[in-house]
């Protein structure tokens, strides 16, 4: 039972890293970006290709995946996304679905449609067991590693957002773009760097998650709903909201699939619909927020 909880937490942390960039860009720019999963997939494929073709060690691949997708995000933000910030939501949805279709077909064309396998280094492969009986806690080392990395990133993010000058600029821009611009904050730069950083995080998440979630060209479509759930349920005004939502989703999904495999993903979707009917703005939204 504890093992399921542990796996759920690892899964949830991973989802959080994947989706936090989406939460920030959605809250910041009110942009419905369904193509976020494409960045995660890009990170995953960067890692796989680097490891398979160039024999780069796994740990080196992670920062490279981050940098690669962040650059990709920055370029796309500047060229394609920026003109669409003030368009209707329908346009944004169509645009990002188009991007997803392109990403899926491109990866299919260059790499092939089969799932990719990541060869983990030996020290991440083991499994430690604590306790016994019903309370046995089996921890895969790789999942432990995921939790550690994601927790460190979360703390770092929280620090940047609440304690640094950039963080306060970002929060100001989220709260009111026009006033922030009027106060002399270069909102465009804040947008660009945030988008790039969020995409980079998604890429890192994709690289970390390739082993857990599986990696094939349909990745952005398969996990789109999960990222959106994290954002819609968690709200976009803080990072604790998406974090809690991601953990909830991770645990519910793992537990649901373990205990009631017949219902599958059914529980998660119904839960999401009920939560959104009850609180359309998300579960963890501060009062008076947008």
């Amino acid at each position, binding site marked *: 039972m504890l093992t399921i909880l542990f796996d759920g937490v690892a899964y949830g942390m991973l989802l959080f890293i994947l989706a936090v960039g989406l939460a920030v860009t959605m809250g910041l720019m009110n942009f419905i970006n369904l193509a976020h999963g494409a960045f995660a997939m890009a990170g995953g494929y960067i890692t796989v290709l680097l490891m398979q073709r160039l024999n780069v060690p796994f740990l080196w691949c992670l920062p490279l995946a981050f940098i690669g997708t962040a650059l990709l995000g920055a370029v796309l933000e500047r060229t394609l996304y920026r*003109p669409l910030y003030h*368009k209707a939501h329908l346009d944004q*949805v169509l645009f990002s679905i*188009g991007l997803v*279709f392109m990403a899926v*077909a491109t990866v299919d064309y260059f790499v092939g449609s089969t799932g990719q396998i990541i060869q983990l280094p030996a020290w991440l492969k083991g499994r430690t067991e604590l306790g016994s009986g019903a309370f046995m806690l089996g921890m895969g080392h790789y999942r432990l590693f995921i939790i550690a990395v994601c927790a460190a990133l979360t703390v770092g993010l929280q620090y940047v957002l609440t304690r640094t000058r950039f963080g306060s600029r970002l929060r100001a821009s989220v709260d009111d773009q026009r006033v922030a611009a009027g106060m002399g904050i270069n909102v465009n730069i804040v947008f660009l760097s945030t988008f790039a950083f969020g995409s980079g995080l998604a890429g890192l998440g994709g690289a970390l998650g390739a082993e857990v979630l599986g990696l094939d060209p349909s990745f952005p479509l398969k996990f789109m709903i999960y990222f959106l759930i994290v954002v819609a349920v968690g709200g976009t005004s803080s990072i604790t909201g998406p974090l809690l939502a991601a953990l909830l989703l991770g645990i519910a999904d793992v537990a649901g699939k373990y205990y009631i495999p017949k219902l599958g993903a059914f529980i998660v979707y*119904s839960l999401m*619909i009920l939560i959104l009917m009850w609180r*359309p*703005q998300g579960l963890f939204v501060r009062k008076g927020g947008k």
Partner: protein
Amino acid sequence: MDASSTNVLLRSRRMRPWEPVLWLLAFAAPLALPGHALIINEIAIVALFALSLDLILGYTGIVSLGHAAFFGMGGYAAALFAKHVMPDPLVGLAVGIAAATLLGAVASFTVMRGTDLTRLMVTLGVGLIMLELANKLDWLTGGADGLQGVVMGPVLGKFEFDLFGRTAAWYSMSVLLVLFLLARRVVQSPFGATLKAIRDNRLRAMAIGIPVTAKLAQVYTLAAALAGAAGALLTQTTGFASLDLFEFHRSADVMLILVIGGVGWLYGGVVGAIGFKLLQDLISAVTPQYWTFWIGLFLVVLVLVGRERLIRPWTWFGGRKA
């Protein structure tokens, strides 16, 4: 309001002279192009599906990513009915519509509140739940193998479905025509005007006394019924129902179709369906496997250029007006 503007309002409701001609041409098409009757049938079905989405997207402003839920519901209901109860197509169609209407009425509770993002999520969620259900209830739906062995009786007891799809094309087109006229009547009625008011400014609509949630529920249910009819037509004319009916790409495609033809215009769905099918044929003839890439590129370019300019070719050249 002076006399001329009253005339404008009245005129926009009347049938234009070119419309009966268009429909006559459409009905003559299976005779003129006997080899393409199957494609014509498909176009009619997709047009009906896009028409139903137009009611909620174009006229009411609900961005839905899960419209395939109703399409699939209607399709499966009609197929199951034909397999287990009776093979008459018209009764099956009614059953399909009824099932989708019911689902639409239940699902309409989910789209009343919240922002575009919330609605996007819940519609997507409903679509995925239906897909999961159809997948897991394999004793009823055949699961991933699909529902096979659906044999349809003749339409009205007279017209057998033939191999070339001619009967199917005429059948689908007749249903499309009837439902098109119904939808047209609906959007031109005061009810349609309140829908547009809700789309343009929900707060103001509420302030002038429009019961917004009730209207949303009604139009969502109606759109679900039309989508169910489209799904029922598809399974009846192909004699096969599979999980593909509920897939996400179907919801995305129908949105693309509507956008190609123009949102908030009933012929948009019809024009878009023709355009989309031709585009699909053209591209998949060149690259059978990767045609989604080109569809994606088309979407991206379409949005960046501005989708309202696609159906107005005279704005393509020359400077943009400020």
